[in-house]
């Protein structure tokens, strides 16, 4: 390699610095100025290169040095990631705090993974000296947290013959645990970690088409607009519609093994909330602390804008790394709009031609390329893993036709549209049942039918039909009043209201209702539809609708969700009997017992 000389800074325009630096590569990292700020080359023009800098460029002056680092933006992948909080370029924020206090100082150079900590490495039994080692081979394991076993992978660019594998014991991430002789005769030393450039998707053997829903414990999501493991979803919503709560609920309760939460240009206090509450919460599937399976990437709105652009890629690369170990990973990105705005800001400073609302022309292709990194795959080691991507979108003014929302809508398969109107009425989660969609319903149905109840599709469709009917009727009511409706129509309105209040609404703050198992989800849905059907029958034999509307069982049905936990299925079944008895009482009063009206 040629030794490249340092260049000079020519111009500073916010986070965009122009340097005179011949032969630097596009995408290469550059350290600039006396402060040693790090950035990456995003354009070349003759002798000059344009660098976007991850930190504030205040007090940097033209004429200072710029030094090419010879590699693109990469992350360190190895044990010690989980439970941690990193900034947008994978610097550990806790270590930054130790060095620079309450505020983030500039020019800090801190390794993402702790160099002093040791890990108990257990070598793989299947590997032996002389055996071939290919990309993604599992060299051994490290118990990273109590729940997660870290599988130490051979980097994707390694292929050769194993010369040496370390025995069981305590190692730091910098110690060599394996030596591989490659085809050209050279020896590669492998450690517990390796580096991977974030803008390049990690390779895998092949895509895997098996389908299994990602259970989030949220009724409107799982039952009505399901997402599959390895799927891509977007949560658009105006401010105050509850985007963050939806995302945090997913991070809390989803049945993924690893959760990566990328706070991209959002509020600092929201990340702190996760940092403070997750260590107290337990995973409903394993009973372990949630923080053991979670890692955070935080670039809050007041942190430098260029690192915000990088944070999404850092997050998804970390997600792919755990996928390659054979885990189901969920990455939540809050918010992709801030990422798009970072793109826009950089593009604007470069004087690129804006297309829609100032966004550069490559917005749509960048978004699509990002979401394409989701998927369920068969890894090089033959395991199955997945990355599910869930991106929040913050449309200005709640206008879903704006560029980021509309492009995202074309890319994702599941679209959870949040509604300001529902949020204002404190109907949470404010997922709008008319604007939302899921392309995974048929695939998810197979799972629900096999594991929960074969009537799932039918019940789901019926509830959505009832909601649509009620929306229609509500328009009539708004014109002429409820008295104009027939008893059957009034009962349909009540049925829809039961679905909304008894099933769709779910309080994140209620200890009992915050998580709802698929079994309980189906039971609640079945319960309210049952009430609706039995009421319809009674109307048929002449029971006045007023009397039905006055039934105390209706208020009871609305409270069932927060009365019994997902474990109290016995009690929940008991409610069904209560309902049945209430209706039998009316039936004997008005008609012959057991007589079914046609």
């Amino acid at each position, binding site marked *: 390699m040629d030794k490249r000389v340092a260049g000079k800074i020519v111009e500073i325009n916010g986070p965009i610095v122009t340097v005179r630096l011949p032969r630097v590569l596009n995408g290469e990292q550059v350290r600039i100025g006396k402060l040693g700020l790090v950035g990456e080359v995003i354009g070349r023009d003759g002798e000059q290169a344009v660098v976007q800098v991850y930190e504030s460029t205040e007090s940097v*002056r033209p004429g200072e040095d710029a030094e090419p680092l010879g590699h693109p933006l990469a992350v360190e992948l190895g044990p010690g990631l989980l439970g941690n909080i990193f900034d947008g370029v994978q610097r550990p924020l806790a270590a930054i705090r130790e060095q620079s206090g309450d505020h983030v100082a500039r020019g800090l150079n801190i390794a993402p993974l702790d160099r002093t900590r040791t890990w108990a490495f257990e070598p793989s039994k299947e590997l032996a000296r002389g055996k071939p080692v290919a990309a993604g081979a599992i060299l051994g394991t490290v118990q990273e947290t109590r729940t997660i076993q870290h599988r130490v992978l051979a980097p994707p660019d390694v292929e050769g013959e194993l010369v040496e594998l370390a025995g069981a014991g305590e190692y730091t991430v910098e110690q060599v645990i394996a030596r591989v002789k490659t085809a050209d005769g050279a020896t590669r030393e492998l450690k517990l970690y390796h580096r991977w450039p974030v803008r390049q998707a990690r390779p895998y053997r092949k895509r895997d088409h098996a389908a299994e829903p990602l259970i989030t414990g949220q009724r409107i999501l799982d039952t009505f607009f399901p997402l599959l493991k390895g799927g891509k979803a977007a949560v658009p919503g105006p401010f105050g519609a509850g985007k963050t709560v939806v995302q945090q609920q997913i991070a809390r309760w989803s049945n993924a093994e690893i959760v990566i939460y990328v706070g991209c240009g959002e509020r*600092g206090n929201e990340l702190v909330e996760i940092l403070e509450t997750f260590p107290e919460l337990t995973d409903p599937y394993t009973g372990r602390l949630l923080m053991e399976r979670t890692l955070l990437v935080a670039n809050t709105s007041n942190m430098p804008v260029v690192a915000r652009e990088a944070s999404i890629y850092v997050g998804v690369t970390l997600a792919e790394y755990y996928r390659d170990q054979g885990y189901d990973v969920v990455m939540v990105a809050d918010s992709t709009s801030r990422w798009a705005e970072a793109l826009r800001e950089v593009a604007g400073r470069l004087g690129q031609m804006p297309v829609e609302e100032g966004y550069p022309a490559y917005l749509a292709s960048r978004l699509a390329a990002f979401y394409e990194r989701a998927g369920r795959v068969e890894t090089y080691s033959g395991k199955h893993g997945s990355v599910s991507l869930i991106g929040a979108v913050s449309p200005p003014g709640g206008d879903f036709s704006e560029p980021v929302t509309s492009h995202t809508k074309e890319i994702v398969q599941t679209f959870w549209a949040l509604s300001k109107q529902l949020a204002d009425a404190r109907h949470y989660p404010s997922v709008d049942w008319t604007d939302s969609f899921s392309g995974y319903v048929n695939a998810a149905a197979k799972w629900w039918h096999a594991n929960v109840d074969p009537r799932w599709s039918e019940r789901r469709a019926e509830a959505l039909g009832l909601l649509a009917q009620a929306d229609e009727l509500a328009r009539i009511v708004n014109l002429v009043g409820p008295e104009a409706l027939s008893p059957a129509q009034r009962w349909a309105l009540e049925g829809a209201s039961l679905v909304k209040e008894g099933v769709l609404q779910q309080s994140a703050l209620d200890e009992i209702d915050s998580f709802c198992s698929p079994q309980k989800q189906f039971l609640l849905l079945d319960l309210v539809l049952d009430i609706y059907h039995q009421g319809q029958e009674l109307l048929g034999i002449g029971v006045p609708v007023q009397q039905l509307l006055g039934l105390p069982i209706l*208020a009871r049905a609305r409270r069932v969700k927060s009365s019994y936990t997902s474990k109290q299925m016995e009690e929940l079944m008991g409610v069904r009997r209560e309902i049945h008895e209430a209706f039998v009482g009316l039936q004997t009063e008005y008609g012959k017992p057991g007589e079914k009206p046609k």
Partner: protein
Amino acid sequence: MKEKEYRMSSAARGGLLFLRGVPGVALGDRVVVRDHRGRKRNGQVIRTSDETVLVQVFEGTDDLDLERTWVRFLEEPFEIPLSRDLLGRIFNGIGAPRDGRPPLVSSLKRNVNGSPMNPAARAYPREFIQTGVSTIDGLNSLVRGQKLPIFSGSGLPHNRLAAQIVRQAKLIGEEAKFAVVFAAMGVSYADARFFEEDFESSGVLGNVVMFINLADDPPIERLILPRTALTAAEYMAYDLDLHVLVVITDMTNYAEALREVATAKGDVPSRKGYPGYLYSDLAEIYERAGRVKDRRGSITMVPVLSMPSDDITHPIPDLTGYITEGQIVLSRELHMQGVYPPVNVPPSLSRLMKDGIGKDDTREDHPRVSSQLYAAYARALEVRNLASIIGAEELGETDRQYLEFAKAFEERFVGQHEDEDRSIIETLTIAWQLLSLLPPEALTRVREADLAKYHHYEKTTAKVA
């Protein structure tokens, strides 16, 4: 270089001064511009290269004669001196005194831009602040370290509400009052005077620092004023261990100044001509609120902004809402009806409320009462809408009860006197009185135990057949 003055201005427009041929000037450095009359203006380097330097002049570039304008680079970032003597003083946007007293002298100086707080150093805000205003305490509780803006419109009483919050804000069981940083950008003399008098009459003036830029002061100064004010607030919170309440008014004027400069610089506009970085820029200001681990002080922020044409989707309120932890929205309709404070309940929100209320903080039933009031009022508004079409006589019994509830809610819960300092228990008592207008079956957000304890429903009207 520090001593040297340059006369190399090549252009001046919209508060920006372009200089040619001054090498090696650092970004963000402070600049003193001397015009042909010998008057000094303050500036800051906002773009720099080998060839040209762009300086933003806070006092504006009006009647600058390029030939006779001298520029001196101070080789230091924009800093203000800080000491305990800040309290009780009035400054302008760049920290120069406005009260006729001598400038503050201190060896401690800090960069007004601050540096971003490490998320890992933040402590989650969870201490309930009682403002004595029912719509805030009961429905949108403010906690220490939160940023909760007031979204208002021209002619609405946002100033009176902000002043009332300043007067009444306290922690339950704590005597200590908040220290106040008051930052005003582009406000009228009358508004500035109103606050000053209010602080004076309530005896808090000695605990207040004011940073004022009036409507006829240079607009570019508005860009640095909130940063200066927040640097003072951070000093008070983290060096003097004070709990600081920051009132910033009016953020709309700030954003307009930003647009003015962005346009002059030739930045690519995004929505309504505002630059694409408006979000990041506003976040730099708002995110300076908060609490820090192992520090005693805190910064709670109540920014006020007027929504142009009462439009909440306008970029300024819209982006603000995405950054702040909720919003208190004022309603012109309620104001017209004489309700004070005219808080528009449905779109108002406090995101940090959930952890600051309940059994150990306010009262056990508070979260559910709040949710129930919201749900009931939302339903009541639908009924009111319906009644305006088909007439109230056509409504069923429950619907009529909702109508009555809506009226009572607006008059007795939302409405209160400007000097009325309601305790949270008083607020909750009123809430239950109102909920008692509705039958228990309608109240599914509260628990049965809450109903048994607090709900006193009396069926007044005859049952409709």
